[in-house]
Structures are given as C-alpha cells and as structure tokens.
C-alpha cells in the first residue's frame, strides 16, 4: 500500500524549476553555481553530452502529514538546467560539489588552451 502511494507520487510530475545560476570565469577555469535547496546528493544528476552539461535534481520536501500550512512559498520541484560548454573545457577534470544546497561545478581549461608565453629563440 505504501509502495503504491509512493509510486503514485513519483509518477505525478513535479513542477519544473530552472535554478538560479551564476556562471563566472577565474584564472583556473570556469565556475558554475546553482541554487538547488532541498536536493540531496543522491537525487542529483549531472550529465555531459557533447556540448551540454545537464543538471537535474529533485527536491522532495513534501509536507509532513498532520501539518496544516498557513503559507507556502516553495515546495517540491524538479530542477532542470542545461549549460553549454565550449571546447576549451577539460571534460575529464570537471568537478562538482554540493554543499548547503548550492551545487558548484568547476570546469577547468584545457592545458593547451591556457595562455602562455612563447619563448623566442635567437637565430
């Protein structure tokens, strides 16, 4: 019985939310920060296709039984966000950390693409 109800809530589509995202660049690469409060580590997926980084996470902060709500301004939802990434990004070394409801993704630059000085030889 409980399994059935669980399956029912699972199949009901959650409202889709595009999480607030910061994209910024520092010397060691690009950083993407996403606000995904309420998403546990096991409910978060990060997929990389060719040029797209897709983040999906479920926030299951369902109301506890017996509680009556006086005011509701957020609720369960599915966070979905895609970010295009360029060829300059080293796909093998992408790191993602989830802490306090913020997902931070570090996209390091490819070694060969980082700026360097070209030594000049005297002929």
């Amino acid at each position, binding site marked *: 019985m409980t399994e059935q109800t669980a399956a029912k809530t699972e199949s009901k589509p959650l*409202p889709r939310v595009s999480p607030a*995202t*910061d994209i*910024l660049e520092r010397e060691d690469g690009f950083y993407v920060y996403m*606000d995904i409060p309420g*998403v546990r580590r096991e409910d978060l997926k990060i997929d990389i296709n060719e040029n797209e980084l897709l983040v999906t996470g479920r926030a299951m902060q369902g109301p506890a039984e017996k*509680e009556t709500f006086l005011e509701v301004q957020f609720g369960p939802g599915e966070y979905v966000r895609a970010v295009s990434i360029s060829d300059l990004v080293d796909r093998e070394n992408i790191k993602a950390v989830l802490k306090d409801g913020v997902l931070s993704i570090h996209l390091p630059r490819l070694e060969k693409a980082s700026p360097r000085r070209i030594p000049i030889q005297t002929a």
Partner: protein
Amino acid sequence: MVLDFNTLYAFPGRFDRLLEDFFKPQLADGRRMAYPPLNLSEDETAYYVRSEVPGMPLDALDLTLTDKSLVIKGERPVEQGKYFRQERPAGFFQRVVALNAPVDRDGVRATLVDGVLTVILPKCEECKPRKISVDVG
C-alpha cells in the same frame, strides 16, 4: 567560453518550457519577490517555519526570537571572478515572521539540511486546548 546560450536560441524543443514558464502560477502573485521564500505550517505540537537559504551555513544565519516575531537575517556572499551570468541573489536579506501565538521560547530549535532551514517553535503547554472536567456537586 562557457555560455548559457540555450535560453537564447529559439529551440523547438524549448517551446514547451516557454509555455510552462508562462503559465507558472507562482509568478502571478508577487509573493516570490520576497527573499528567502518561507513555508509556515503547524501541527498539534508546534509551529514550523521553513525557508530556502542555499549557500548559507547555520552559523552565518542570524535567527532572532523577539516577543512577537522571529527574524531571519543573513548575507549571501558574492563570488569573485568575471561574471557571464548572475541570477543568484547576493547581499543582505531579512524576513520577519510575526508570531501571534504564544510559543515555548526555550524549546525552539533550528536545523539546516541541504540549504533548507527549519525552525520548530513548540506550542506552549498552557495554551493547548484542555478538557475541563465538570464535577456534579
């Protein structure tokens, strides 16, 4: 360069999302404007104040319980770097929850899990409804 062009391209697959965003009910009222969003609920034993405060450790949040209100204060830091896109709010925020019911002030607890703050304000014993037995004299 990392750029989020997806929102700019008129991608056929994104059209449904556009409609979805357009009909989003919570954007119709102005309540989403207040930051951070709050959920207020109660059961028989306590009041619950829940709030989405991503990126804040519990010690960076300032919770004050006054006579008639609960104040949630904090500051979200700004990341250093060259921004391509900034959607996350930054800076000071404050929300005041008016408490029009007596609570057990010593039993108030706050937890923070995955960026969701939960403050539990137990109802005080004296204010719970009680049955009064009537003795027939």
